């Protein structure tokens, strides 16, 4: 493998290692669940991205062929990382966050987690019922 490729691979591996470490440290260090989401969604994106670029450069240096699957991994990471962050945020909204402490959406409707009917409705808005009294939703209409 040529010297420039070794240097580049090393550089990207170090960068990604640093960001991965900082992201994980942030997860421990930040004070509450909502701020904690920020560290892993961001810092690890570059952490994983660095490893993938290093892998591409290594493959190119070692075999002379450019592998593009790493780009695809990056793409899927960009698709999935916001979704897992959104899930965590939603759980936080449902279970911990006081509705009054949130800013109101400007055209006056309310946030979907609290106001929407059906499955997206907040769990704490539905009082627990004993199974005998549970009424199944009427789906005939």
């Amino acid at each position: 493998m040529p010297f420039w490729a070794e240097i580049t691979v090393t550089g990207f591996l170090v960068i990604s290692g640093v960001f991965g470490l900082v992201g994980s440290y942030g997860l421990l260090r930040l004070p509450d669940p909502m701020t904690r989401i920020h560290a892993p969604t961001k810092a690890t994106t570059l952490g994983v991205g660095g490893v993938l670029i290093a892998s591409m450069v290594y493959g190119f240096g070692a075999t002379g062929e450019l592998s593009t699957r790493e780009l695809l991994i990056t793409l899927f990471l960009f698709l999935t990382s916001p979704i897992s962050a959104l899930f965590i945020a939603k759980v936080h909204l449902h279970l911990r966050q006081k509705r009054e402490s949130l800013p109101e959406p400007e055209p006056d409707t309310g946030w979907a987690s609290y106001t929407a009917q059906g499955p997206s409705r907040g769990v704490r808005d539905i009082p627990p019922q004993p199974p005998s009294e549970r009424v199944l939703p009427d789906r005939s209409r």
Partner: protein
Amino acid sequence: MRARLFPHPLLSLVLAVVWLLLVSSLSPNSILFAVLLGVFVPMFTQPYWPGMTRPTRLSAVPGYVLIVLYDIVIANIQVALIVLFKPSSKLQPAWVSVPLEIRTPEAITILAGTITLTPGTVSCDLAEDGHAILVHCLHAPDPDSVREDIKNRYERRLKEIFE
């Protein structure tokens, strides 16, 4: 004719490109198969896309992708610096409600994903009527500037692409 061959041009393009990246080669047979995927998958799945939106300006997509990639790198550095050097007592997390002008579900989804991937913001919820998005900021001494940033930097470009 064009609409029948490519009912969903963006999906066609994405499928073809993803296939080429997956096989990691540009030989004629992989290109042929990529084209076949791009033509037939959207054609056969079209009935499952009722009320589908067709992006009007595909030419603006690469610019948007580049801006988002650049912002992701900046976001990583900013968040890393905050994590390492800002004591928790000086951290000013904030909830921001961002009113939306875009109405297309696809555009709102992309905007929400972009917000989560970029500087210090995570999108958390949508207003019931879909006209505003709830954003949590890691460190926002000035929430109004966050709102302006999101609207000018991303929403305006997505509006160009989709509406």
